């Protein structure tokens, strides 16, 4: 608290802090590879995709208060949009700068398709319908291989084109000024750029007139419409904007993996993204980013528990996969008891100011 006050009060210190953060982020893949190996750079790439997803869902759930349990469907729409138009499946190979905006637009259309019939639903009822929507998209992808093969069914789509930047494929290792950049590093920088852009858009939205109107709808929809807010349009806008983030993340995911299948878009994945939003702190951009990074990185770190047991105890007593679910459940219970508003909630500062007011 004291430190942050000092930093925000001093412009030079603030610049130094931002420069340090930028430097850290730019060198992160190299440091990670040196310390933990290349597989961890890949995990960080995935974490950045989840940052985008969680921020997209945060618009719908955190800002507008619309509980969406099928959010991963928009990720799927973006991923399959990219996969179908940049792979041997239809022998079409469109470039990423066409496909990513197209995927975003397609996801936005699906967002409105989901939003329009559910305008009058809230809370649990909305959750049920969105959950169904998410499953419909997955089941469709699973079964659209007959009678005409569109999605290739459960086998998924392979050999998806990587992103080509000016004739340079991100999937290959490049040598620039003596620095070796493998594929995971290349994608790291692209994902970092997109994630930072997503954060910037989220922050702008949060403090905009639209953002405040969403929060008003979240807090009291009737009072919000009494203020003259066009609640229908703003709710549809929240669905569309949230879906857009998901669609872009999906396209990036498809190009990064080179392979998509319906198995990547299960209900549990929607719940995971929602957990990131809730764990981090619904409605607070920084909290949501924290939640996304923690929930991507920590489960991976648990993989080391197995070999560690082997080394220390001579046998594996607890299966790491079981441990993951166990700790996840424990974390949820502890969060509910200790920090029900998330690790980094909105306006902790003003909560303190209120305590000082004696109320």
């Amino acid at each position, binding site marked *: 608290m004291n430190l942050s006050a000092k930093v925000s009060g001093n412009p030079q210190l603030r610049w130094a802090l931002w420069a340090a953060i930028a430097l850290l982020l730019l060198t992160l893949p190299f440091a990670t590879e040196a310390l933990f190996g290349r597989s961890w750079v890949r995990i960080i790439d995935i974490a950045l995709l989840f940052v985008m997803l969680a921020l997209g869902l945060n618009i719908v759930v955190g800002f507008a208060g619309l509980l969406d349990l099928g959010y991963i469907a928009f990720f799927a729409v973006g991923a399959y949009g990219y996969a179908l138009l940049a792979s041997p499946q239809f022998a079409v190979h469109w470039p990423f700068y066409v496909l990513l905006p197209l995927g975003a637009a397609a996801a936005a259309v699906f967002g409105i398709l989901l939003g329009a019939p559910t305008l009058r639903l809230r809370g649990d009822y909305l959750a049920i319908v969105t959950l169904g929507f998410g499953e419909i998209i997955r089941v469709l992808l699973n079964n659209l291989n007959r009678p005409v093969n569109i999605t290739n069914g459960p086998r998924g789509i392979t050999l998806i084109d990587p992103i080509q930047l000016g004739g340079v494929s991100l999937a290959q290792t490049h040598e620039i000024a003596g620095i070796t950049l493998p594929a995971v590093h290349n994608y790291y920088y692209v994902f970092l750029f997109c994630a930072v852009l997503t954060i910037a858009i989220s922050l702008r939205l949060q403090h905009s007139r639209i953002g*405040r109107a969403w*929060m008003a709808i979240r807090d009291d929809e009737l009072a*919000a*419409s*009494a203020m003259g807010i066009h609640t229908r349009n703003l709710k549809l806008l929240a669905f569309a904007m949230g879906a857009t983030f998901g669609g872009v993340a999906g396209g990036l995911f498809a190009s990064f993996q080179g392979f998509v299948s319906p198995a990547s878009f299960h209900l549990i994945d929607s719940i995971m993204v929602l957990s990131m939003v809730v764990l981090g702190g619904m409605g607070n951009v920084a909290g949501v980013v924290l939640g996304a990074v923690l929930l991507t990185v920590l489960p991976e770190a648990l993989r080391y528990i197995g070999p560690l047991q082997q080394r220390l105890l001579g046998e594996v007593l607890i299966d790491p996969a079981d441990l993951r679910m166990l700790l996840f459940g424990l974390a949820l219970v502890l969060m509910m008891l200790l920090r029900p508003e998330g690790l980094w909630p909105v306006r902790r500062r003003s909560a303190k100011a*209120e305590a000082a007011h004696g109320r």
Partner: protein
Amino acid sequence: MSAPYLLEVCGLEVAYGGIRAVQGVDLAVASGEIVALIGANGAGKTTTLKALSGLLPPKSGSLRYEGADVTGKPAYHLVRKGLSLVPEGRGVFPRLTVAENLAMGAYIRNDRHEIRRDFDRVYALFARLAERREQLAGTLSGGEQQMLAIGRAMMSRPKLLLLDEPSMGLAPLMVQKIFETVRAIAAEGVTLLLVEQNAKLALETCSRGYVMESGRVVLADSAAALLASPQVRRAYLGE
């Protein structure tokens, strides 16, 4: 002035599904008046106000505001024309600060300079809100929330303010305070239509009143006459 009345309601009917909550209400409010709409629980007062402010579509009947037909026009249209509602049960945005709540009241406006002046006006009207401007609205007391709800509606610069049960659930002292403010707002030239269960206080504040019973207006008269009427005294003043 072409229209004698600011708001004219003719044969208003509102239904929830098959249940007709309002079954033919006629009322009129002239510019500068304070008018009360009183009645027991479930008489249809709140439903009437919701229909007048465009939050519920009327089943039949007509609404005229400033001489123009506004039947079936949505709230976002009417708020821009200067018709604002302070909803029942206050309806503040609990997770927004006091200042942000007030800013939402000015949602339909974009004259920044004037909005800043209106903030000061509201803070002058409710000193308590000025002290708490950075506090979350959900942490205010009931009376403060009611002040905030009224102040927020004032931020839209209403010509006609519809107040739904401003005294509900408040301590007697706070009720007095709220009604003082209501009079102060009226003195600024805002026309008021006040729905109240506290019939005595409402009629003492207003010039005219309407009495509703099971979805219909059963009495309409000057406030003094209603206060003296044996029917009203028996039913609403506990005598």
